[in-house]
């Protein structure tokens, strides 16, 4: 066994100190659903593991009238089962329920998934669609990054060495809004072959005042489908089909493997954009 030092800080401050001390040699452990399997397979061998599991205050999920907050260590299940979220922002529990299986959702964390930035993970799509702010603590204090600036490339995020993701903030959607997440599961892993999260707010005429669409599984990193959004703002449900056709505009490189070609993933993204947007608009109405 490649030996590693295990640290279990109790406060964010001591966690930060450890992260800065060990730098690149350290891996931060949240729910452990990507790091631990990699270590067991001996594909990862960090010399230091900093377990955030015992850090106070990172597990909370709150759903206020203004803001929804998800602590970095909140499990998928905590979001799936939150009492207020179905009425405040149903897209969050709907996405959580699509992740892995019950065991994974009970252990895996929202923050871990986002920081890991698997190109086929479910959360990035939804965080993009909800215009989430990612809260980050670092050597120079705290900062927040919009989800659309956070997912950079294959497993690469805006997180810098010495920084730790501490939570996610989402503006509580207004009354006349709705969201939906539609995906096809890769038949083995359950990750998204393609997944589209859509969130819309309607104006008084029933047209889209604002639209946000996040796409995962298709490109090296999850992305906002800006072209779809531009095509739909100010329009109603009749415009969804045409708008959804732009779901992969601007994508230069597609994920592909023996489960699905790039062309097929792109096609799924367009189909699911249409389905997610139609559902979102229905829910908003």
């Amino acid at each position, binding site marked *: 066994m490649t030996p590693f030092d295990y640290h279990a800080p109790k406060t964010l401050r001591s966690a930060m100190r450890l992260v800065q001390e060990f730098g690149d040699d350290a891996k931060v452990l949240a729910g452990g659903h990507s790091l631990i399997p990699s270590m067991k397979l001996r594909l990862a061998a960090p010399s230091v593991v900093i377990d955030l599991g015992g850090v106070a205050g990172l597990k909370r999920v709150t759903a206020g009238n203004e803001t929804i907050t998800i602590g970095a260590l909140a499990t998928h299940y905590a979001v799936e089962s939150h009492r207020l979220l179905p009425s405040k922002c149903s897209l969050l529990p709907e996405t959580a329920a699509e992740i892995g299986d019950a065991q994974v959702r009970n252990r895996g964390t929202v923050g871990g998934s986002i920081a890991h930035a*698997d190109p086929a993970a479910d959360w990035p799509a939804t965080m993009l669609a909800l215009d989430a702010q990612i809260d980050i603590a670092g050597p120079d204090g705290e900062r927040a990054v919009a989800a659309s600036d956070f997912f950079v490339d294959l497993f690469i995020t805006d997180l810098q060495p010495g920084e730790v993701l501490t939570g996610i903030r989402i503006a509580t959607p207004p009354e006349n809004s709705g969201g939906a997440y539609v995906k096809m599961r890769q038949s083995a892993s359950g990750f998204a072959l393609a997944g589209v999260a859509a969130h819309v707010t309607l104006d008084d005429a029933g047209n889209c005042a604002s639209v946000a669409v996040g796409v995962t599984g298709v490109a*090296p990193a999850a992305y906002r489908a800006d072209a779809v959004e531009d095509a739909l703002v100010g329009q109603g449900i009749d415009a969804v089909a045409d708008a959804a056709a732009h779901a992969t505009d601007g994508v230069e490189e597609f994920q592909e*493997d023996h489960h699905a070609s790039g062309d097929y993933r792109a096609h799924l993204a367009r189909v699911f954009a249409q389905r997610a947007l139609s559902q979102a608009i229905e829910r908003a109405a």
Partner: protein
Amino acid sequence: MKLTGTHTIGATVERAFELLIDPEVLARCMPGCDKLEHRSDGVYDMAVSAGIGPVRGKYTGSVTLSDIQPPERYTMVVDIKGTTGFVKGEGIVELAPDGENTRITFEGDVQIGGPIAAVGQRMHASAARLMTRQLFGAIDAEARASEDEI
């Protein structure tokens, strides 16, 4: 696995070619390169710490540059292995002028074996493309920086 792609380098074809086959530049620009030392004609010993996401490994082996036809094309063979598996890639790199820049086209075959082959297949293509993107991106940055100096 087939690997193809195109990249742009902000320099003339002649300058881009020089950069691409310069071992010092390659050592700086190749992601995770710990060592690149000339062994014999066109063959370089290499050590890299490479990885995608949490999967990281140290690999040692060689890079061979051959069939060098300045400033148009050359063949590059990468043959490295580590405890997480091995990677063997062979490809042809072609350069062509693209306005003031150089357009690089590469076409090759990559073989991945050992543990990383069996458990990471969905990442193979995108990881390989990410690394080439990083390599040519860094060379482009280097080209543009050296241009600034001039």
